[in-house]
């Protein structure tokens, strides 16, 4: 129910953030029916895509979904908890490599791969997070950057995971134990869609839960939350672990689809693109960053092929335009989103709140 809460903030907009959307009187902020209809239509369209698109295109959409789930995990930390991170690629990679290794050495069953990849990513996130979440702000950003880089170096040098050649020879997944392997792009896509939807549900449920409220409390006033009697360290560690698990699930979906993992998949590019997608889409909304992720991947993988070798330039231009035209991201263009004092400064946001 409280997934609708971000909308509730429109009821009385902050007078300071006088945007064009400010102050729509008598506008009912809670419209669960409309919301459910939109969600239903989007899910149906996504599910129907393999019936209309060519295998190459459906592969692109599948990669977008897997990447988008990684981006959602970044938003859970960056937008909801107020901890901008570059380290989620490490857990994405953990999930992807675990799924790949399980597929090669143990079983082709996708459920097992998903479970193993998610669980291991959560454990790794908890262990590394135990150190990382002791820091905050720019230091935290640097620590997570180091975690991401470390994971890539590790993947780049470990013979077990194919080192710099990448992990090749991942067999196609099966969903039913002992069933037919899914070779058709559309069938694999449906599995990726299932993982994506599962991850989204987990993210939204967590955001709406008491833990989610505590996470937003950390974002808006960590020391105030402590003064209310909350030890903020476990909240941050829990958020970090859950985000790591979601990134791991995204990694298993990625591996199921590409059937090849290279250390480049968890490089700095990926981390930066993920953070870019969050900013582009609207930090803290979870659904906005999904649109941001789609935009980033479409520009990088599809539009860029028309302007040879200038994909990065296009992304740069896109980012600059977005920051100027949509300071609160795509989601923020529609209503006043929640803002975080640590990240994505709201115009005229009170300085008192940052403490």
């Amino acid at each position, binding site marked *: 129910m409280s997934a609708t809460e971000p909308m509730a903030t429109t009821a009385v907009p902050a007078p300071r953030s006088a945007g064009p959307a400010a102050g729509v009187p008598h506008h009912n902020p809670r419209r669960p029916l409309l919301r459910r209809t939109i969600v239903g239509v989007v899910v149906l369209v996504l599910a129907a895509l393999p019936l209309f698109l060519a295998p190459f295109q459906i592969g692109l959409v599948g990669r977008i979904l897997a990447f988008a789930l990684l981006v959602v995990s970044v938003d859970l930390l960056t937008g909801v908890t107020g901890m901008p991170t570059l380290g989620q690629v490490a857990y994405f990679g953990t999930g992807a490599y675990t799924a790949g290794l399980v597929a090669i050495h143990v079983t082709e069953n996708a459920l097992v791969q998903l479970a193993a990849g998610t669980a291991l990513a959560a454990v790794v996130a908890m262990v590394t997070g135990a150190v990382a979440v002791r820091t905050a702000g720019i230091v935290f950003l640097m620590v997570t950057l180091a975690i991401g880089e470390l994971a890539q170096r590790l993947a780049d040098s470990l013979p077990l995971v194919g080192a710099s050649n990448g992990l090749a020879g991942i067999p196609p997944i099966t969903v039913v134990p002992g069933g037919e392997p899914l070779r058709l792009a559309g069938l694999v896509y449906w599995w990726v869609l299932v993982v994506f939807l599962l991850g989204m549900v987990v993210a939204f449920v967590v955001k709406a839960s*008491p833990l989610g409220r505590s996470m*937003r409390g950390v*974002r808006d006033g960590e020391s105030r939350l*402590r003064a209310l009697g909350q030890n903020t360290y476990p909240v941050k560690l829990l958020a970090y672990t859950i985000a790591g698990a979601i990134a791991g699930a995204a990694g298993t979906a990625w591996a199921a689809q590409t059937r090849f993992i290279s250390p480049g998949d968890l490089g700095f590019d990926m981390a930066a693109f993920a953070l870019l997608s969050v900013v582009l889409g609207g930090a803290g909304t979870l659904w906005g960053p999904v649109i941001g992720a789609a935009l980033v991947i479409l520009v990088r993988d599809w539009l860029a092929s028309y302007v040879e070798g200038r994909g990065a330039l296009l992304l740069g231009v896109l980012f600059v335009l977005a920051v100027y035209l949509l300071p609160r991201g795509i989601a923020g263009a529609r209503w006043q989103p929640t803002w975080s004092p640590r990240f994505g400064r709201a115009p005229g946001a009170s300085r008192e709140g940052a403490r």
Partner: protein
Amino acid sequence: MSDALLQLRDLSLRYGSLAAVDGVTLDVRAGARHALIGPNGAGKSSLFSVVAGHTPETSGRVVFDGQDVTGLGEAGRARAGLVRTFQHSSLFLGMTVLENAKLAVERAQGRPKRPWPSPRADRAIRDEAMQHLKSVGLLDRRSALSGALSHGERRQLEVGMVLACRPRLVLFDEPTAGMSVAETTRFAELVESLPREVTVVVVEHDLDVVFRLAERVSVLAAGKLIADGTPEAVRADEKVREAYLGRPRSSGPLFGVAS
């Protein structure tokens, strides 16, 4: 001694050679209405910060309800019932008023780290949060962003949140700073309406509020406790006058005829 809820024993906070709090020993009785006054820079807020556990003390002990809480952090002390308000309203500005209250209620009685919703528990939290909002007169503002509240309303919400923590002792740090006269009166009424199970210690500049609310007044100057007693006794205290007005050059009256 036995009915002292809060005992400070030789509490000090030093920054290098500067003693912000200098060997303060003080008892606050359970149920007391205790005021802490002193000139600017006397160390009142520093003392509060140390008592609340926000700033670690240099030396000394804090005993709350017979239990040594010196080693306990801010969150631990708040859970034990020793809660403070902030000199500058410090709310969760990106959230609604109701959510601010829910955050406070959840700390005290919910499971603030539960990562899934539970309709029954969530309704109980909501009901109690609404009740606290009602008691501070903010019920009809519950869906406003707390960043959109006026200064006075923010202080009301601050009080509501502190009460939602089910405190046994509240440290109010200059609660009426920046309030209008009407808001100040309203705040005083709010404190007067608190049940006696809640002990109140207040740092205040507005001496009208102090003498209206407090049954006992402690005076801090340059980090030291220089007086402690009933409002009347403190008002008459020579050292207090000196701290506020300075030491007269001659021993003669301040506005006397030049001899």
